[in-house]
């Protein structure tokens, strides 16, 4: 495994960094105040082809590997920006790419690659299901004419208002005898532009600027060809896409972690109290150094996971460990940075408190770190099921 970035990777990172420099702290602070979507930033990324990076070249995308694509999200967060507003446009299409029909791929992937269509909403979680995805209650029933009638409720559907398409997981059947317990869920591609009043979205205000909603789906009719892949296999498809998602989220955490460490070490070196830089005190310096070590270690796991993914090898343990370690490392770095800045860390203009709130999300979403531990304990270490 090579540790240096290739020239292409270096160029990708520099290209993203250049773009991000046009969206400084004040841009993000204003959005944060208004709880507004970073439309100009997302448009710039879209126009530059960055969000279509993982779509194969034959469909007009960048054709990047996951290792290369993850650098884009890492660098966005490293530059003080927030990839959470748009990262799903990069990877949600993976389900269509891997399991969709040729007609679905031809119809949607080029438009997703160009940004003409935004597929960055993912309707999975429900108020009464949480991480227990198999307990979800949203139903899609096949009608006599082949269409699907959908009813149910979703929650934490991020970027819904900024998406043209939504990938939806709904129950279409129950497992019969001899069938796996996960059978019976199916994935659908919902064209939100045609859904009208059958989907009601209620925004949820959160502690950071994150566009998310609760959805009420009432008699939504989907055409027969909205089904992605085989009926009943939706849960497997969602799991398939999770490794990529974990690795990309880990990359964002690494980017955040580096931002915090750089910000903290610069401030600790420049800020003088009692006649010397505060960074000359071990109580200030060591937490930053420790956070740096944690971020770099997490980055290695993320890169290993990405290398395995790109080689088509199993990477579930590594992808999950990368997300676990990287989210913990970025949170460690966030706390070191806030502590280093003292009272100024709480002042909006330093951006520390904003990034602090943003990076905390990664320990909870898109998967809670406790579930990763449960997965590692049960599936990697063969211990009894803990939940």
């Amino acid at each position: 495994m090579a540790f240096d970035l290739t020239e292409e990777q270096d160029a990708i990172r520099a290209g993203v960094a250049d773009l991000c420099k046009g969206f400084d702290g004040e841009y993000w602070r204003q959005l944060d105040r208004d709880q507004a979507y970073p439309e100009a930033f997302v448009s710039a990324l879209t126009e530059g082809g960055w969000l279509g990076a993982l779509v194969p070249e034959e469909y007009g995308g960048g054709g990047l590997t996951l290792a290369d694509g993850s650098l884009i999200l890492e660098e966005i967060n490293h530059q003080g920006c927030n990839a959470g507003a748009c990262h799903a446009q990069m990877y949600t299409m993976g389900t269509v790419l891997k399991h969709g029909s040729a007609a679905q791929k031809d119809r949607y992937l080029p438009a997703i690659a160009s940004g003409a269509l935004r597929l960055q909403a993912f309707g999975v979680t429900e108020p009464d299901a949480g991480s227990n995805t198999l307990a979800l209650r949203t139903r899609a029933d096949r009608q006599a004419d082949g269409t699907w009638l959908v009813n149910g409720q979703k929650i934490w559907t991020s970027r819904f208002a900024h998406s043209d398409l939504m990938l939806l997981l709904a129950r279409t059947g129950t497992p019969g005898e001899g069938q796996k317990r996960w059978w019976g869920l199916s994935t659908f591609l919902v064209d939100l532009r045609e859904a009208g009043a059958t989907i009601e979205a209620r925004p949820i205000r959160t502690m950071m600027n994150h566009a998310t909603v609760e959805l009420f789906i009432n008699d939504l009719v989907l055409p027969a060809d909205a089904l992605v892949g085989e009926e009943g296999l939706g849960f497997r498809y969602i799991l398939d896409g999770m490794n990529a998602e974990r690795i990309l989220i880990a990359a964002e955490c690494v980017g955040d972690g580096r931002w915090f460490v750089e910000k903290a070490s610069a401030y600790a070196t420049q800020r003088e109290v009692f006649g010397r830089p505060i960074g000359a005190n071990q109580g200030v310096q060591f937490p930053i150094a420790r956070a740096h070590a944690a971020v770099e270690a997490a980055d290695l796991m993320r890169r290993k996971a990405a290398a395995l993914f790109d080689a088509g090898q199993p990477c579930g343990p590594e992808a999950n460990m990368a997300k676990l370690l990287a989210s913990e490392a970025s949170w460690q770095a966030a706390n070191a940075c806030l502590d280093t800045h003292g009272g100024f860390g709480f002042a909006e203009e330093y951006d520390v408190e904003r990034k602090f709130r943003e990076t905390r999300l990664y320990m909870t979403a898109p998967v809670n770190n406790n579930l990763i531990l449960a997965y590692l304990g049960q599936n990697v270490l063969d211990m009894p099921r803990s939940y």
Partner: protein
Amino acid sequence: MKIAICVKEVPDPTAEKRIDPGTNRLVRTGENTLNPYDRHAIEEAVRIKESGVETEISIVLVGPASAARTVDKALAQGGDRSVHLADDGLADSDILATSRALAALLERDAYDLVLFGQQASDAECYVMAAAVAERLDRPCVSQAASLTLDGSTLRVKRQVETGYDTVEMPLPAVVSVSDAINEPRYPSLPAIMGAKRKPHEVLSLADAGIDPDTVGGAGSRTTVRGLSKPAGRGASVRIEDDGTAAEKILAFLVENKVVV
């Protein structure tokens, strides 16, 4: 139409500049990148091309082999091909020597228009375009705020202290563009990934037919004997305008006998 953009690799402009006390030269061992002012020149060439004029944009760079990444950055910005003079014999070249090398590269092809950024962010000299134009014996305009092509005539609106000059010149010509001429676009992912696949010509001094004694330290006529920081500003008075700023400024000037 053939356009050449002369670009330079510079230390990252966001990093603090350091001078090596032993050599009195700028330390270039840190992160290096494309001179940000050159991006405006590339963008202007791309706009000419996008206006429908059949155009080939060549990126021309004099610099070490490690500047290949900067060449790729310039190509991603919109260049079609590159000419990179990379030779250890170029080290320590001053403006005269570098302009000689650039002119030699530019003479190898029949460029209609040679564009420069207004300055390099490291040395801040502003004069390379004029030096190269002199060597090529071509008309030159600096601080171009807009370019308009009319056949083989170029109309340049030039930014001056009192407003604008409009200058017409026949092609071939050399122009340095102001950083107000346009807002350079961000290179797209496909452009970045495609940069490597564009034609790259890497030349040594011998390849370019340049006498090693005319460039590098041997071909330079300037020596940096010493460096000192500019004198700091004296005590200053800050006046916020609360409606009485004019009176306060006048009082200050009278008190200091600037006006009586």
